[in-house]
Each structure stands twice: as structure tokens, then as C-alpha cells.
């Protein structure tokens, strides 16, 4: 199939439709507005529903309703809008409802700026909303991956009945690359959802989508069950790329678009005689701890450097995974500034 040259945001939207998403609810915010724009036209072609909601809060609760009723549903936003969605995300997670949430990150905190950032790592990976819960978080690094992981996200969400987040940044959302789009799914072949609301015909149990468990023991049992589910996800769903790590003495840790910049830097460093490599978590939760731990054990590896568009968020997970076996340095930019490969290469070459 011929490749198309499309924006990351458009790739996400089209891949969602092809994966069976027929319900999209969103609210405009830069730099992700191409997603609702695309969906408004595309979903009407395939008999789906697009609603420009009155707020991010309403949008995520419409997703909650549509997904609770068994539809493949998605919302997208950028950082401040994702903050508004957190209440709904917590409820969805606590009702075992599958859905997909896209965060095309921009610089925060507050209204911040509209340029690229990775400042929402903690929010995405550590919870975001209230209570003990997790999302599966995919961090695509190219427009092709933005399409592929959005496509996959709906399947994984259904498999575990969990909200899945696509975490990318304004740069990936806005840039264009050649993409081979996945095939259009046959909706009738999607797994049946016996648990979903549809009207109770008096056969089997009544369906109740609910996150209220007012008895402490009942709620604790439920949360224990959630964490069993997260353990299974850790077993099965970790995805990570290792780039030139075999002989690396310095291992960079980066995700999303920054990993691409780091690859460019690594090629330059290797020309300078510095053996650098990269571990790129593709799933931020579950985090590829074992990959980091394995390299940390190697005598040849001298140190790790976490490179992020933040003041240092993923670095905490890198440190936890490495368990103090090797030093971990940090290089980052904030405010919407994006480092280039020379910046990263000179930081590493400078031996900091």
C-alpha cells in the first residue's frame, strides 16, 4: 500500500477510525486541533459520532458513556485540557471501561505555551487523577508509530478493560512523515463486550458501570484486583527499543520525539569516538525496568543520561530501574524549546 505524507495528528485520527473508533468527543486546543477537525469530517463518512463538547470535562464523560455502552471511543487534547479530563479518567479506570485518550503535549505549567513539551510524564504515568490506578501509556516516536500505536491502543484497551493514553508532543502532532496506514477493521469482528450497557433483557446479571465502592473492604479488594491486572500488563505489554546499546558506554534514555533527536546525537557521538546508545521506552507504563536494569549490570556501561523536554520526570523511573548501580545524569529543555542533536551531543561529549 502506498505511503501517505500526513501529520502526526492526522495519523492518530485516521488510525483510530481504522481501528474501529466510531465515537470521538473533544474540544479544541493547540497543538492537537487537527484531530477533532479530522474526526468531524471522517466519522460522518463511516457512520460514527463526532461531538465538539462544551468542555474537556464533558468530552471525557461522553467518552465514558460511549465506552461504557460498548463503543470504541476516543478523546484528544493537549496538556491543560488533559488536566481537566483527569476526574473522568479516574472514574473510567475505576469502572474498568476501555477507551483511548490522546495527549499532544504542550509546555506547562498553567496555560504555559503551545510549543512541544514532555512535562506531563508524571501526570500520564503516575496517575494524574485521584486514587490508585494506572493507564497504559504509549509514547510514539514517529508519525508511523503514532498511527500504529493508536491502532493498537484500542485492542489493548479492550483486552484489559483499561484506559490507554497516547502520549506525544506538539512536534510529533504537527510534523509530517510518510506513513503506511493500517487496514480498516471489520467492526463485526471486534470482540464482544458482554459487560457493556445495552439494556437488560433479564437474562444474566444486570450491568452496572460504577466506580463507587463505599465499603472499605470492598474497595480494597477492587484495587487489589486492579493491581493484579497491572501486573499482567507488566508481564505482557512492555515495549522498548534499544538502539546501539550492545557496546555502549553511555546510555541515553529518551522517549517520543526526543528519542529521535538522541539517535541523531548518538550517530554524531560515535563519529567522535564516544560509544553512546539509547534505551527508548515505548510503553511508559508499564516501564521497561528490566531493560535498564540489565544494562546497568554491565561493566561496560559507565552511565545513563535521561534526556527530556521537562525538568526531569522520566529520570525518576530510570533511577528506580537502575537501583543506584550507575550514575544517572539529566539533560532537558522546557518552555517549549526543543534541543537539537548538537545540543545533546555536546552535553554528552562534555562529560557532564
Amino acid at each position: 500500500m502506498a505511503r501517505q505524507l500526513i501529520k502526526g495528528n492526522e495519523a492518530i485520527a485516521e488510525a483510530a477510525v481504522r481501528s474501529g473508533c466510531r465515537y470521538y468527543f473533544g474540544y479544541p486546543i493547540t497543538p492537537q486541533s487537527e484531530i477533532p477537525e479530522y474526526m468531524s469530517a471522517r466519522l460522518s463518512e463511516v457512520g460514527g459520532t463526532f461531538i465538539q463538547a462544551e468542555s474537556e470535562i464533558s468530552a471525557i464523560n461522553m467518552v465514558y458513556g460511549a465506552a461504557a455502552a460498548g463503543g470504541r471511543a476516543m478523546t484528544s487534547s493537549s496538556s491543560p485540557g488533559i488536566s481537566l479530563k483527569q476526574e473522568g479518567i479516574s472514574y473510567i479506570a475505576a469502572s474498568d471501561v476501555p477507551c483511548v485518550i490522546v495527549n499532544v503535549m504542550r509546555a506547562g505549567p498553567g496555560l504555559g505555551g503551545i510549543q512541544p513539551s514532555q512535562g506531563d510524564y508524571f501526570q500520564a504515568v503516575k496517575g494524574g487523577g485521584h486514587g490508585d490506578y494506572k493507564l497504559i501509556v504509549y509514547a510514539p516516536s514517529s508519525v508511523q508509530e503514532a498511527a500504529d500505536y493508536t491502532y493498537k491502543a484500542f485492542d489493548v484497551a479492550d483486552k484489559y478493560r483499561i484506559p490507554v493514553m497516547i502520549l506525544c508532543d506538539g512536534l510529533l502532532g504537527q510534523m509530517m512523515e510518510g506513513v503506511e496506514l493500517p487496514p480498516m477493521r471489520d467492526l463485526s469482528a471486534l470482540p464482544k463486550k458482554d459487560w457493556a450497557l445495552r439494556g437488560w433483557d433479564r437474562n444474566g446479571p444486570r450491568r452496572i458501570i460504577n466506580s463507587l465502592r463505599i465499603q472499605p473492604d470492598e474497595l480494597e479488594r477492587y484495587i487489589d484486583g486492579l493491581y493484579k491486572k497491572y501486573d499482567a500488563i507488566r508481564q505482557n505489554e512492555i515495549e522498548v527499543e534499544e538502539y546501539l546499546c550492545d557496546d555502549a558506554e553511555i546510555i541515553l534514555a529518551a522517549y517520543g520525539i526526543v528519542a529521535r533527536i538522541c539517535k541523531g546525537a548518538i550517530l554524531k557521538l560515535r563519529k567522535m569516538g564516544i560509544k553512546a546508545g539509547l534505551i527508548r521506552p515505548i510503553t511508559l507504563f508499564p516501564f521497561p525496568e528490566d531493560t535498564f536494569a540489565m544494562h546497568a549490570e554491565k561493566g561496560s556501561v559507565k552511565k545513563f543520561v535521561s534526556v527530556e523536554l521537562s525538568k526531569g520526570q522520566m529520570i525518576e523511573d530510570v533511577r528506580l530501574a537502575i537501583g543506584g548501580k550507575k550514575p544517572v545524569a539529566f539533560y532537558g529543555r522546557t518552555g517549549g524549546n526543543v534541543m537539537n542533536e548538537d545540543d545533546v551531543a555536546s552535553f554528552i561529549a562534555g562529560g557532564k
Partner: protein
Amino acid sequence: MAVFHKTKDLTSKPFHYCPGCTHGIVHRLVAEAIEEFGVSEKTIGIAPVGCSVFAYDYFNFDMAEAAHGRAPAMATGIKRVHPDCLVFCYQGDGDLASIGTAETVHAACRGENITIIFINNGIYGMTGGQMAPTTIMGQKATTCPNGRSGINGYPIKICEMLATQEGTYYAERVSTHNVKQVLNAKRAIKKALKNQIDKKGFSIVEVLTNCPTNWHMSPQDSLKYIEEKVILYYPLGIFKDKDAEVKNA
């Protein structure tokens, strides 16, 4: 021979509502109406946060429990997936008229084909009697201990407000303070549900109810309070009915 029976659309679980509270009556009216339309098996209800948070335990349908104020948004998502199901929201005044005002107004403006049962008892019951957006002037609550005055702002009139919106199909306010009013409430609830079955659009029935516990009154006095005080601020009647507009046109 007509024999009274409990509707099969309520479960056998005893209500947790306080003695004398009319929530239970409204539950029964809604469940009976749906049973009478014969659409029980194609009904999905949405419970709010507030006193009726456990409504999913009482209504014998597929049910969802929404976040505080978000029932109309959740109902929108459900209805779009199952346009042939009857989807209703059961919401209190704090839920619908305070934290969920935006969701309510915009569901109406979209002409969303759902039915909202709006329980207005002028108080936050579940959290212990704080001032509601619908607490009437002079009425005491734990966060306006001297009675609501201008300093607290004025009570919101939902039916009057929604009646101004093009997307609203039907908005009526009814009461539960005596048998006649309860029967009238049932008529309004049936109409609001039938509108949805007939795919007419957004319908809301505001039901004035009591809260003997947090109003610190006997049940009888609380019903009298609705009749003598609440109705003065919240007059009963139809505020919008596009059926009538069509007839009159």
C-alpha cells in the same frame, strides 16, 4: 380488578432514603412509567452523585453511575451508541444545577434525545445540609446558617432557563407535596420519556421534593413547606413544550 403491584423495574433492595423523603416516590414513578411503555429491556439509567448515588441499586435496568454533574455528558455518549435505548438521567439539584450546569445546558442545546429527571429539594442532602444552588431565599442551610440572603446569591431557575434554548423540547416543573401533585408528576415524567421514545429530543422534568432531615422538619411540615414556600419561588407548570408550539403554529 385492578390490583396494585410493585413495578418490576424497581429492585427489592430497601431504599436508604430518610423517612418521609419523596425520592422513593419519584423512583417509583419513573420505574412505573418505563414499565408501562414496555421498554424496560431497552432502558439505561444514569445515577448522579448525591442522595440518589445508589439509584443503580434500586432501578432494575442496566445502570451507570456518573461523576458529579456529568450525567448528561455520559448519557450523551451512551445514547449515541444505543440510539434505540431509552436513556434517562436522575439528578439532584447540586448535581444538575451547580457542578453540572454546563453539561445540562449543552445537552439541551444539542437537543440530545435524552430524558432528565431533576430532583430539586433545595439542599445538599448527602453531605449534610449545605446550601444548594436551589436553596430558596431565607431557607437555612449549614453554609447559610442565618438563611439564604443576597450575600449568597440567588437560586437558579433551571426550567425557566432551559425554556429559552432552542434545543430544549420539553421542560416542566412538578411537585410531590400531595397525591394530586404526585399523579401530575407521573404524567409529566411519562411525557418526558415518551418524547424520547418518539425521538423528539431533550426533555426535562424538575420535581420539587422535600428533605425532612436537613430541613429539620417533620415529613408533613416539609411537604407543607414546598406548598407554601418553595412553589412561590419555583412555580409549577410547563415552561416549554414544542408539541404545543407545533399545535399552536
